[in-house]
C-alpha cells in the first residue's frame, strides 16, 4: 500500500510539473506584460520595467525562476491588478469558492443518494419513472440557465433569498442549489443503477431468505455496497464544480476564484490565469489521490487483500 501511495504522489508531482511547464510556455507565446495596461512608455522605461519584472532574462532562466517561485508560493504578479501578487488574489478568494464547492458537493451527493435509493427500491413503478425524469432534466438543464432562473424567480420575484453577493448562509443557498443540481442528478442515476445491481445479487437473495425486512436489507446490506462505487465520482464532480463555479460565481457576484478566472481571461491577465490553472490542477490531482485512498480504506476487499484461508 505504501509503495503504491508513493508512486501516486510521484506521478502527482510529475503531472503538476508538466502542467506548470506547459502553461508557462503557452503564456510566453502570448503578447502582453505586467505593465501593458498602463500608459505608453518610452523605450527606456520599458527596459527598466522589463528588468524589474525579470523579463530581460533568457527564457529558461525565467522558467526556472517561475518554477522556483511556485514552490515557494509565489505565482507572479497580476497583469490586471498591477502590484497584486497572484497568490494574494487567490488566497483572498479561495474561501468563498471552497465553501460553495463543498456545499454543492454535499447537497448533490446527499440528496442524490436518497433519491437514487428510493428509485432503485421502487424500480419500474411510477416513483422510479418520476425520479428518473427529474434526474434527466436536472442533468440536462445547464447550471447557468438554472442559476438565472433561480435568481429571477426565487430571489427577485419571491424574495426568499438574496439576489447576489456573499454574506451569511442565506447568500449561499441559491448558488449551492444551482451548482449542486448537476451532481444531484448524476448521483441519483448512478445510485439507482448501482443499487439495482446490488439488489439483484445473490447475497441480497440470501438476506431475503434470512427473513430480513425490505428496510433491513436496504439499510444493512444494499446501501453500503452501493455507496462504495460512488467514491469514484468525486473526482469528476470536482471538475464539474470547478467549471460550474466560474459562471455561477459570475451570475451571483460571488467573490470567488471562478469569477476571478473569468475576469482574468477577459483581461488577458496571464499570470493569474496560470496561477488559477495550477490551483485547479493541483486541487484535482489531490482529490483524485484522496478518493483512491478512501476507496482503498472503505472497501474491505481492497483493505484486507489476500486470503487468510
Amino acid at each position, binding site marked *: 500500500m505504501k509503495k503504491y501511495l508513493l508512486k501516486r504522489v510521484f506521478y502527482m508531482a510529475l503531472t503538476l510539473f508538466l502542467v506548470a511547464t506547459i502553461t508557462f510556455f503557452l503564456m510566453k507565446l502570448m503578447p502582453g506584460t505586467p505593465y501593458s495596461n498602463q500608459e505608453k512608455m518610452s523605450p527606456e522605461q520599458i527596459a527598466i520595467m522589463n528588468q524589474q519584472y525579470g523579463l530581460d532574462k533568457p527564457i529558461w532562466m525565467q522558467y526556472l525562476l517561475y518554477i522556483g517561485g511556485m514552490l515557494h508560493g509565489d505565482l507572479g504578479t497580476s497583469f490586471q491588478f498591477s502590484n497584486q501578487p497572484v497568490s494574494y488574489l487567490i488566497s483572498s478568494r479561495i474561501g468563498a469558492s471552497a465553501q460553495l464547492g463543498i456545499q454543492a458537493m454535499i447537497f448533490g451527493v446527499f440528496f442524490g443518494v436518497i433519491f437514487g435509493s428510493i428509485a432503485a427500491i421502487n424500480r419500474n413503478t411510477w416513483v422510479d419513472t418520476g425520479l428518473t425524469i427529474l434526474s434527466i*432534466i436536472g*442533468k*440536462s438543464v445547464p447550471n447557468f440557465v438554472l442559476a438565472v432562473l433561480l435568481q429571477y424567480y426565487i430571489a427577485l420575484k419571491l424574495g426568499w433569498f438574496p439576489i447576489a453577493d456573499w454574506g451569511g448562509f442565506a447568500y449561499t443557498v441559491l448558488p449551492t442549489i444551482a451548482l449542486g443540481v448537476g451532481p444531484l442528478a448524476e448521483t441519483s442515476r448512478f445510485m439507482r443503477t448501482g443499487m439495482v445491481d446490488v439488489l439483484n445479487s445473490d447475497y441480497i437473495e440470501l438476506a431475503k431468505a434470512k427473513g430480513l425486512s425490505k428496510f433491513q436489507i436496504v439499510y444493512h446490506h444494499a446501501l453500503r455496497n452501493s455507496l462504495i462505487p460512488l467514491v469514484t465520482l468525486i473526482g469528476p464532480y470536482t471538475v464539474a464544480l470547478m*467549471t460550474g463555479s466560474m459562471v455561477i460565481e459570475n451570475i451571483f457576484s460571488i467573490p470567488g476564484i471562478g469569477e476571478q478566472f473569468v475576469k482574468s481571461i477577459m483581461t488577458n491577465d496571464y499570470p493569474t490565469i496560470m496561477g488559477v490553472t495550477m490551483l*485547479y490542477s493541483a486541487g484535482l490531482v489531490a482529490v483524485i489521490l484522496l478518493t483512491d485512498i478512501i476507496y482503498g480504506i472503505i472497501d474491505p476487499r481492497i483493505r484486507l487483500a489476500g486470503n487468510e484461508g
Partner: protein
Amino acid sequence: MEEKMKLQPKDFQALEVKEELDAEKIAAPSLTFTQDAWRRLKKNKGAVISLFIVLIMIVVSFGSTPFINRDTLVKSQPQYANLPSKIPGVNINGFNGKAKVGDVWVDKYAQAGVAKDKYFVMGTDYLGRSLAQRVVYGTKISLIVALVATFFDLTIGVTYGIVSGWKGGRTDNVMQRIIEVISSIPSLVIVVLMLLVFKPGIGSIILAIAISSWTTMARMIRAETLQLKSQEYVLAARTLGQSPTKIAWKHLVPNLSSIIIIQTMYTIPAAIFFEAFLSFIGIGISAPETSLGVLLNEGQKNFQFLPYQMWYPAIVLCVLMISFNLLGDGLRDAFDPKTRR
C-alpha cells in the same frame, strides 16, 4: 377412476419418436443482436420520442441554411427592437404581441407601429432581429460544433484506446500516464488555454472541445479492448495470421460499436453544453456568429424585462440535451442484455 384407466390395446403400441428433433427448437423467434437491440429500443418510448426530436431539430436547423444565413442575421431593424412573440392565430397574452409593462399587458406591436400582417414567432432581440431565425441558426451552429467536436473526439479517443489496449505492456503504460496527466487538468482549463492561444472561432472551439474530452472515450475503449483482446475469437484470428489492423477493423470495432455509439450520445450533449457555457461567459463564439450559448448570454442581460429572449433558446437547449441524454440511456439499455429488468 376405472373408466379413465381403460385403455385400448393399440394404445400400447410403440410410439415413433420423430418429434425429438423439434424439442431443440427454441420457441421464441431468434433475432440478431442489432434486431434485438432495435426491438428493445423501440419499446422505450422516451428514447423513440427523443430520436424523433433530435432528427427533427437536425433537419430543421440544417435545412434552414438556404433561408437563414449570416446576412439575414446581421441585418438589424431597430424599428422592431424587443418585440414579444406574436404567433398568428394564438391569443394568449405573451404570445399575441402583448407584453407586460408593470401590471398591464401592452400591445407592443401596435406601440412600435408594426404593420398588421408582420409577426415574429419568437419575438425580436434588441436589434430587431427575428429571434426565431436566430434560434434556428444558433441551434445549427451549436449542433455543428457539437457533432464535429464529437467526431474528432471519437476518432482520436477510439484510435488511442484501441492502440493502448491492444499493444499493452510498456506502450499501454506510457499512453495511460499521458492520459492521466491530461485528465488532471480540468477540461475547461484546457479549453480556455487553447482558446487563448488560438483566437476564438468556430474552428478553434471545435478543436478545443475535442482535445479536452477524448480522454474519457479513450479510457473506455481501452478497458473494453483489453477485455476483448482475451476473447477466443480474437485469439483465433491472430492464430490465423490476420494483421492487427485487420483484426481491429473486423473484430474489435464491431464489438466496440455499441459502447462507441452510447458514449457518443453522451458526448454530444456535453459538447453542446461546453460550447454554450463558453459562449455564455464570452470566450466562445462571438458576434456576428451566433449559437445557443450566445443567445443565452444576450437573453440573460435582458431577463428581468424581456424574459422570452432567454426562455426560447434555453428551452431549445434543454430539449436538445434531454433528448440526447434519453437517447443515450435508451441505447445503453437496448445494447446491454443484462439490464433487462
